């Protein structure tokens, strides 16, 4: 059950760490923040908790959260401001055409997915069908989601 946010409309996005996941904690935080942004649960300009607050809530080292925030800033998902709270990057309000570096990053992710699919014995057709299903999954996409039904980025 998610807590209702009393200061903003909608539900509050949460981070949940899987301590059995081989991925490092900072990578889990990065992945989940990006998922929330993509699903519209975190919108451009929304403030994120301070490094100390998030580290305290998760019971992890502040440097781990700081590493996650810096990684997110490097990908322009969030904006770190000295002396102020980190916010979801304002550029996401006016998304532009994908940049070469973004395309390269997605290509690397797809290459990884291709390997996994081949190891699982999937065909290219079943992989495309699965990709469509994931892209359009309604439970993951809230209002303001970056994905739309026709696959275009608005």
């Amino acid at each position: 059950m998610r807590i209702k946010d009393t200061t903003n409309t909608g539900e509050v996005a949460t981070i949940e760490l899987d301590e059995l996941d081989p991925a490092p904690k900072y990578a889990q935080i990065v992945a989940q923040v990006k998922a929330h942004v993509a699903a519209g649960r975190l919108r451009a300009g929304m403030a994120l908790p301070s490094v100390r607050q998030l580290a305290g809530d998760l019971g992890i080292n502040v440097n781990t959260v700081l590493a996650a925030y810096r990684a997110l800033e490097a990908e322009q998902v969030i904006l770190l401001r000295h002396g102020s709270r980190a916010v979801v990057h304002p550029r996401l309000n006016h998304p532009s055409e994908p940049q070469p570096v973004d395309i390269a990053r997605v290509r690397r992710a797809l290459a990884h997915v291709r390997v996994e699919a081949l190891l699982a014995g999937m065909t290219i057709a079943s992989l495309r069908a699965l990709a469509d299903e994931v892209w359009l999954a309604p439970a993951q996409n809230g209002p303001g989601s970056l994905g739309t039904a026709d696959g275009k980025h608005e």
Partner: protein
Amino acid sequence: MKVQYFEAGLVIVILLVVTALDWVMPTLTRRDLLFGVTVAPNSRETDAGRRIITRYRIGIIIVDILVAAGVGLLLAFAPDDFWRAGLSALIILVAVLLFGVPYLMAHFASRSLAVVPQAGERSQQPQVAPAAELRPRHYGDYVPLIWELLPLAIIAATVAYLATQYASAPAIIATHFDTAGNANAYRPKTIGSYFALVWSQLGLYLLLTIVSILMVGAKVIPGRAEERFRRIWLRMIFAIKTFLLALFGFLAVAIAQAATGKHFAAAWIAPVTIGATLVMLVAVFAVSLRTGQGGARLDPATATTTDRMDDRYWKYGAFYVNASDPSLFVERRYGVGWTLNFGNPRAIAVFAGVLALPIVIAVLSIVFSTTR
């Protein structure tokens, strides 16, 4: 009424309220915590769990009998100065320490029902994944910031009134009154002595406000009644803060009026102080009963701990010491509210600051007592 009977009666009343709170405390905590030990959620209902709680409550009664006997002996043999000096407060302190004995006995007995590794054992798989909201928490989310104008207005009104009366007050002013409102201690009028209660108001306001702000940072598990619990208790602390400031303001006004020969308010110092103390104790008791610890009674369905706070970090179930946890405040395991993470150096600084505050107030009073 003789002062000793009055003070002894007050001690007994406070003792009864504390006893009532301690009596119900085992049922206020989360279902999977028994005297600070992580246990299976139904442990309180088992024969062993019931036995531990029953023995704890018998221990509470024994402490009550001992303290009451002590009060009786003091009434019979202690000199009047003991009661006039307000040393009866020491009886409360001794009682609180003695209540720790049945608690510790119950804590050690509860370890036989523990479901997680104790100190020295290797930690097993975590009970639940660490989770956190991606939302900054602010004090204003729980207590509207505009409300802070009220306690500040009370302090300002106290200062304003005392300032208008200062010149007309005599060179020697009464600073302590007996239960009938008769002055029984005097000091030279100085900025320090005349405004002593204002220093106390300022210190109290700063202390409770800073502690409340720090408590906002205490970790919370998303999706439970903890948010409601936190909102209720932070507003409760605000109410207590405002109530105490108003009480100090009343005392300051009563003392200032007594200094100019008007003793009507001074006769009400003792009953108002005692009444206010009892009102606060009863309110804390009632709200504790309503919320339980961490909202355990607001939403029993989510009232289990599963917050990865390993028993090994809790000393005797009461003191949290975890140097790798950046949290300053954590939810208490026994009792209602929060406690400091004594493994965090910042928490030690906060603790030292709280203890130092009365000393700072006293020093300021002395410093300003040289100012006329």
